[in-house]
């Protein structure tokens, strides 16, 4: 579980990954053979029309789903061979998630939302408080910990969600259209935040987005089409 990839091996490697939903006539092939390698410390944007397979790929890379065929190596661990609970442990220890709809627990304070992943890691109450406060401060939300999501703006909610994702110091941050529900100005702020986390903490960021402007923040942009990687380009990155 704690196996680190040998030098030269990528952090994330998809080898001929296919994914089929349903069976027989109704079967739908979401992925038709995806090969992809992502090194530690990269900032990758994934784009493509809906149904192109980008969300499925994100779910597989996030260890929420397993490929139907091919292999997914995360830190050299073949994830397709793991059961639900083993994948849950991978998520717990190495992955952080940010969603389009924020997905914070309602009627629960920002502080407690951020503490949630620490709870499952068995941190003590004192350490949870300290780490969560620190994480909130690092996303620019020092002092709003006692507010519930309903009392916060969309941008603030997404910052809380990012704090929750990074409080466990994950290797990879998976962001599924993190700016999809936000206005342009707030979106830029969120992107600056993600860029900073990638640059300063070395967190690998994988982000699905529809907006080219947001994708421009990434070092690498991968386009999906019809269940395959259509293009994989590096850009200079504006962060």
């Amino acid at each position: 579980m704690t196996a680190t990839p040998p030098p030269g091996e990528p952090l994330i490697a998809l080898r001929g990954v296919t994914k089929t939903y349903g069976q027989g006539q109704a079967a739908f092939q979401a992925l038709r053979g995806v090969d992809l390698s992502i090194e530690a410390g990269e900032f990758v944007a994934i784009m493509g029309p809906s149904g192109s397979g980008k969300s499925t790929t994100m779910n597989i890379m996030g260890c929420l789903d397993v490929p139907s065929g091919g292999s997914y190596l995360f830190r050299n661990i073949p994830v397709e061979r793991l059961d639900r609970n083993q994948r849950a442990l991978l998520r717990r220890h190495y992955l952080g998630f940010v969603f389009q709809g924020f997905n914070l627990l309602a009627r629960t304070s920002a502080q407690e939302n951020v503490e949630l992943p620490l709870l499952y890691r068995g941190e003590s109450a004192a350490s949870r408080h300290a780490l969560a406060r620190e994480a909130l401060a690092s996303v620019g939300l020092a002092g709003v910990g006692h507010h519930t999501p309903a009392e916060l703006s969309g941008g603030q909610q997404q910052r809380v969600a990012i704090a929750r994702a990074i409080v466990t110091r994950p290797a990879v941050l998976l962001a599924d259209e993190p700016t999809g529900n936000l206005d342009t100005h707030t979106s830029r702020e969120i992107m600056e935040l993600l860029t900073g986390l990638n640059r300063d903490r070395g967190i690998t960021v994988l982000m699905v987005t529809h907006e080219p402007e947001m994708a421009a923040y990434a070092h690498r942009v991968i386009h999906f089409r019809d269940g395959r990687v259509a293009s994989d380009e590096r850009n200079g990155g504006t962060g």
Partner: protein
Amino acid sequence: MLWNTLLLALRSIRRNLMRSFLTILGIVIGVAAVITMVTLGNGATQAIADQVASLGSNLLIVRPGQRLGPGSDTAGAPNFRLADAEAIAEQISAVQAVAPTVSRGVTVVYGARNWSTPITGSTNAWFQTGKWTLASGRPFNEAEERGGKAVCVIGETVRRELFGEQSPVGQNLRVKNFSCEVIGLLVSKGQSAFGSDQDDVVVMPLRTVQRRLTGTQDITGLRISVREGASIDQAKKQVVLLLRERRGITPNEDDNFSVLDTRQITETLSGTTRVMTTLLGAVAAVSLLVGGIGIMNIMLVSVTERTREIGIRLAIGALEREVLLQFLIEAVVLSSLGGLVGILLATGASIGLAQLMKVPYIFNLGINLLAFLFSAAIGVIFGFFPARRAARLDPIEALRHE
């Protein structure tokens, strides 16, 4: 982790206070009903035991005929004679005292007041066998017993009804066509195990009743007290043998009289009470089950409502068993809370009802503990299915849930 889950459950319950209250109401009522029924049942059994003990634990009651109680068949069976009582007293060493009795319901009059009461004719042995003591006055003397004098000892109820605040000893009652002097007053015994008022009694010498009221030499019952330390069963056997002989019953005939001992009465009565307690308790237990189904229902609703929350927890890395535990603990906390409230309610109801029913309130730790554990177990049993449903959700689906 467990402590945090507990806090989480409490918070979730507090958030839906009204719903949580309605959910546990079934458990509350079930637990309260079970405990109240059992507690009152125990109290009633204890009350019966106490009252029978007040009759004396070493008492044999002999009656003509075979059966006791309503529909008793004494028609064919001959009554006893005074000689039977004397023979028992003389020939059976285990016997301490024998009181022959004959009774007749009459109206007694004092001044402008009258009262219908059974008059018992007996000897001074009657006081001894029934464990009666005199509050004032004296028992019969020999001359009164032998001569069938018109004297009587009365019970507390009769005193209250006829004399009010006045002291009865030395006053004269009118019974039918004769006047009768009150020479003693009995100490109150209260209600009997059969529900009759033991203090509603007038006792006269046997001969007085035979001569002036019944007009026969018959005796309709014998009350026999057995010596301390002697075997009641043994004494009972000897009484039966002697009476069979004196009444000329051949070996292949059944007894035409019955001998009851107080232990038998206790057993019969508390047996009945126990059956009632069990039945009522069982009915109450059904309501506990219904309460459990209520909890399952609300937990299923809760799991559906919180699908997205479950999705978040799973995505963050919660294990199946952690999510299972969270919902299970919530169900158990709900049902145990119901159990606690039920116990409080039952304690109040039991104390109140015990007073109303005039039975002692006996706190029964066992049934309280059992009811509480049972309510917690109901949480586990009925919470498991919804909790497992939550734990097995697909995180991707759950996160998409609106």
